[in-house]
């Protein structure tokens, strides 16, 4: 079968690359103490937060950028990025005060910010972040009735300092890595969630991140704390305009699940991927980690990664509580000239802890897809179990798939199983479907969906639909 036909089918189309035409406050490029002070002041932060940020900056200045990832890109000039950009309407309290252009843009992205516009029965609370600020958080009042705190991280620093002091940096320390340190110094907005003891969060929570301003980076920070016996399902989505220059997104996400609590964290990552020659696109350098603090705690990461020119992220679980459970379900697509180095770390510390890793990498055109995963079983983690499955699907012959599984086990009793496969969409599979009257594009998409099924099944219903549609758009150009 002709290679051009396949390429045409997988070169995708980035449908969310528009720019919201709003006036923006942007701080001049550069990173020094004054930048940090400016951000902290804009956020009306207490002194202690500013001190933590400055400490992080000092640490970061002494660190070097990691180069071990299986990715190559032009080095980032950290002094040429602007670290704060905000639409020119500050801290709106009601929907009427949000710039109608932003509302329209979110509407266009499929994220309604008007509560009454949501369909009955499928309530999803949204925190909408544009560049460096949260512009709107919905359903806050209704959630408060259950004692659930759902607000921007900036608000949380002002209103819930005790929770922030206790949990921020507790899972991802300030100096964890180069990008985490950078984020700790300059983070702007993101979401804070607290679910009280015994509460099952009555609706899906979500954050939608939009990079809009030129020449800026987005550095959000998200913290979710699920107290004993509570449950929350949280989803994040993102997109950015199509631009020729690269933009940096360096986020940190921390999750804490206490005894018997469960956090389900789903991501649909659709940052602008750049073009076929690798020009433009988002550098997505993200640190995500969850701590199963108490017994029987469970943290589940599900990610569908279709965007970004470079991805570097490893959503991980520290299984500290006995019988705690960590899960990682991932679909990562690299097409055009995208490169992804992604995977997870499962750190087993408690007894009878178990983890599951299901990773599906899809590469097309010049895409390079790397799975990198660590399963670590500590000395006291008797009865620990891990199951890992890493499958790669290649479409065409210019792309690549790479797998780097690492295992460190101090407990010889642990059970670790690893399976890995690499397959190509074979001409025989395509032909079989076409012989049944299914056109080539639909056939490719059917095979790819089949490949990703185990992961899509983990997504909440409405997001699974979105993820399938997104995959179709990414891989099939003309569909949609």
């Amino acid at each position, binding site marked *: *079968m002709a290679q051009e036909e396949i390429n045409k089918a997988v070169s995708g189309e980035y449908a969310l690359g528009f720019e919201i035409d709003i006036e923006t406050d942007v701080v001049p490029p550069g990173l020094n103490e004054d930048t940090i002070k400016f951000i902290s002041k804009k956020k009306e932060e207490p002194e202690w937060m500013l001190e933590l940020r400055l400490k992080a900056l000092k640490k970061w200045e002494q660190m070097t950028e990691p180069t071990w990832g299986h990715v190559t890109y032009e080095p980032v000039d950290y002094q040429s990025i602007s670290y704060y950009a905000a639409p020119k309407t500050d801290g709106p309290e009601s929907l009427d005060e949000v710039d109608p252009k932003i509302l329209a843009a979110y509407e266009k992205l499929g994220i309604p910010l008007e509560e009454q516009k949501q369909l009955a029965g499928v309530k999803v609370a949204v925190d909408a972040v544009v560049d460096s600020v949260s512009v709107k958080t919905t359903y806050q009042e209704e959630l408060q009735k259950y004692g659930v705190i759902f607000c921007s991280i900036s608000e949380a620093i002002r209103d819930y300092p005790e929770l922030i002091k206790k949990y921020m940096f507790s899972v991802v320390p300030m100096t964890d890595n180069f990008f985490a340190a950078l984020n700790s110094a300059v983070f702007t907005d993101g979401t804070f969630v607290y679910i009280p003891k015994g509460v099952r969060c009555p609706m899906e929570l979500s954050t939608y991140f939009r990079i809009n301003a030129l020449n800026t980076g987005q550095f959000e920070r998200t913290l979710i704390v699920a107290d004993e016996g509570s449950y929350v399902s949280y989803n994040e989505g993102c997109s950015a305009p199509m631009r020729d220059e690269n933009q940096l997104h360096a986020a940190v996400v921390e999750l804490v699940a206490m005894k018997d609590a469960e956090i389900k964290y789903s991501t649909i990552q659709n940052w602008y991927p750049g073009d076929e020659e690798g020009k433009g696109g988002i550098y997505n350098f993200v640190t995500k980690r969850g701590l199963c603090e108490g017994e029987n705690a469970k943290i589940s990461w599900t990610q569908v990664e279709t965007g970004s020119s470079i991805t570097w992220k490893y959503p991980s679980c520290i299984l500290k509580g006995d019988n705690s459970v960590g899960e990682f379900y991932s679909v990562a697509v690299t097409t055009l000239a995208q490169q992804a180095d992604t995977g997870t770390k499962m750190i087993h510390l408690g007894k009878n802890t178990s983890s599951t890793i299901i990773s599906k990498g899809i590469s097309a055109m010049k895409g390079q897809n790397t799975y990198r995963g660590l399963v670590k079983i500590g000395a006291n983690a008797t009865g620990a179990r891990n199951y890992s499955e890493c499958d790669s699907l290649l479409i065409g012959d210019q792309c690549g798939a790479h797998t780097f599984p690492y295992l460190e086990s101090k407990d010889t009793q642990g059970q670790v199983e690893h399976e890995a496969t690499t397959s190509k969409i*074979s*001409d*025989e*599979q395509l*032909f*079989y*479907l*076409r*012989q*049944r*009257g*299914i*056109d*080539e594009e*639909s056939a490719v998409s*059917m*095979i790819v*969906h*089949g*490949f*990703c*099924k*185990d992961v899509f099944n983990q997504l909440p219903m409405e997001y699974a639909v979105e993820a399938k549609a997104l995959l179709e758009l990414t891989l099939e150009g003309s569909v949609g």
Partner: protein
Amino acid sequence: MSKVLEIKDIHAKIGEKEILKGLNLDLEPGKVHAIMGPNGAGKSTLSKTIVGHYDVEVTEGEILYKGKSILDMEPEERALEGIFLSFQHPVEIPGVNNAYFLRTALNAKRKHEGKEELNAAEFLREMKKYLEMLGMKADMISRSLNEGFSGGEKKRNEILQMLILEPDVIILDEIDSGLDIDALRAVSEGINLMKDGKRSFLVITHYSRILDYIKPDYIHVLKDGRIIKTAGPELVAQLEEHGYESIVEEA
């Protein structure tokens, strides 16, 4: 129209090797044509050529389906027009639900014919009536397409697709290979159900066994890329007894 498919002086290559060397064959509506022949004669290449498989390059000749040339048509167009191939080795497609696949295929065909698409419930009703007949367990339609199916299950699944898609020309490439007697009977019953006096069958086989169940109208002997003899069903007995060599000598 007395011919539904006309294969005229077809020369076809796989890679550099010419396999079909001036093959002529006409299929009549409502008739069962059996193709027999020794290994390497070009039987599977013939079926691949008719359905437009990528491996095959036609260098000379013509194939007309209902009077129209199909050589420039994409494989899916040929399928939508009513040409069906039951594969010798049906491929496994992990994660693709069998029922979903079948409904997609059926609806593609219905759309092509300007008919309403069937919803899931209507489709399941349609399919259910065939499952029992083919001796297929109900869970086979909710499993991934051919994944982990036994040889017999794969062939039954091919026949299920044939029954659902109701094609006009049905090519059965070694449908009988690897089947036990029960499976052979079930598969034959499915095939016989499709015999309505209008559809044509091209049954490619090594063995005469299946021909006891599906009564052929014509036997064609394929050797070295050409049909070297065409006769009635009585030829089967001669082939059984004397082998292909006897035919070669006669020709």
